[in-house]
């Protein structure tokens, strides 16, 4: 299990060894200094906390600065934890830098990010509803969801619409885990990770890259 924090740079294409063109996403990942190592005795669970992207000293709040100071680094904008097994605990100490070298080519990774916000969307875009016909007498409800409940549902549910009924509403800007991306290349010199396929979120957004939990 390996984890790294990064920033989505953008998408492009690269050729693999077989000469096939692959769609890839470039992620600027790490180096992430270890800010804190949590242990079962003091915190109730084993984990390592890492940070990414420095905050300017004049903008950082003192508590964040003080926390980072223990690891001898600047305050970080993006901080996440990785759970550890008991035995892995000794591998990390505050101040260590985790770099892209934790991943290798042809590894599989999951990428966690916050998807692009779409605003308030109708049920057709949000839930892929089919909508109503465009003709044959349909008027003013071409993109409507249709019936949301009937007498039978009402009777069993105290006059309420069923919980979780899919309707129009806010879409996007949600935490999304995109699974099983192949690592196409690792550039340790420039701290770049090139993964196959698209990754949630706009360019410049923070992402968590971690080893895939296959299956």
């Amino acid at each position: 299990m390996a984890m790294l924090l990064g920033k989505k740079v953008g998408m492009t294409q690269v050729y693999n060894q077989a000469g096939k063109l692959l769609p890839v996403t470039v992620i600027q990942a790490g180096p992430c200094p270890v800010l804190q190592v949590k242990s079962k005795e003091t915190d109730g669970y084993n984990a390592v906390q890492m940070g990414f992207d420095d905050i300017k000293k004049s903008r950082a709040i003192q508590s964040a600065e003080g926390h980072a100071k223990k690891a001898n680094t600047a305050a970080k904008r993006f901080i996440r934890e990785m759970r550890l097994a008991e035995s892995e605990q000794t591998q990390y100490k505050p101040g260590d830098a985790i770099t892209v070298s934790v991943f290798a080519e042809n590894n599989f990774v999951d990428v966690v990010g916050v998807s692009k916000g779409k605003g308030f969307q109708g049920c057709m875009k949000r839930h892929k509803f089919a909508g109503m016909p465009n003709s044959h007498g349909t008027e003013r409800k071409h993109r409507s969801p249709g019936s949301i409940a009937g007498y039978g549902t009402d009777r069993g549910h105290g006059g309420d619409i069923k919980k979780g009924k899919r309707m129009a509403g806010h879409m996007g800007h949600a935490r999304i885990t995109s699974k099983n991306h192949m690592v196409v290349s690792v550039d340790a010199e420039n701290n770049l990770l090139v993964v196959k396929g698209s990754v949630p979120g706009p360019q410049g957004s923070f992402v968590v890259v971690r080893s895939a939990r296959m299956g």
Partner: protein
Amino acid sequence: MKTDIMKLVESKNLKKVIPHFEVGDSVNVHCKIVEGDKERVQVFSGTVIARRGSGISETFTVRRIVAGEGVERVFQLHSPGIVDVKATRSGKTRRAKLYYLRQKTGKAVKLAQKYSEHAAEKTAATKA
């Protein structure tokens, strides 16, 4: 806008020398074909009817008539599978995309030859 990081990633796959050819040119495209563990070069010749995209994603379309049937192939300019592109004749065009050739048959498909400066240069280069 492409950032420097993106350019860096793409640059590894970009060809250093891109053969010179334009829309309307008749070209021989030398493509690598892998059969089992053997490799050979096959030539596809026809007229370039379009070039699109930029950087790593630039492609060009070559059209030819095979047994009375139009055949088009889209090649990726920077693909390692494209060994070489040789322009044999340049055609006179007034458009960037020659899709109208799809409606033409027989003699009408042939473009008038262009004798511009670069065309002359090219013929000299191929002869040399």
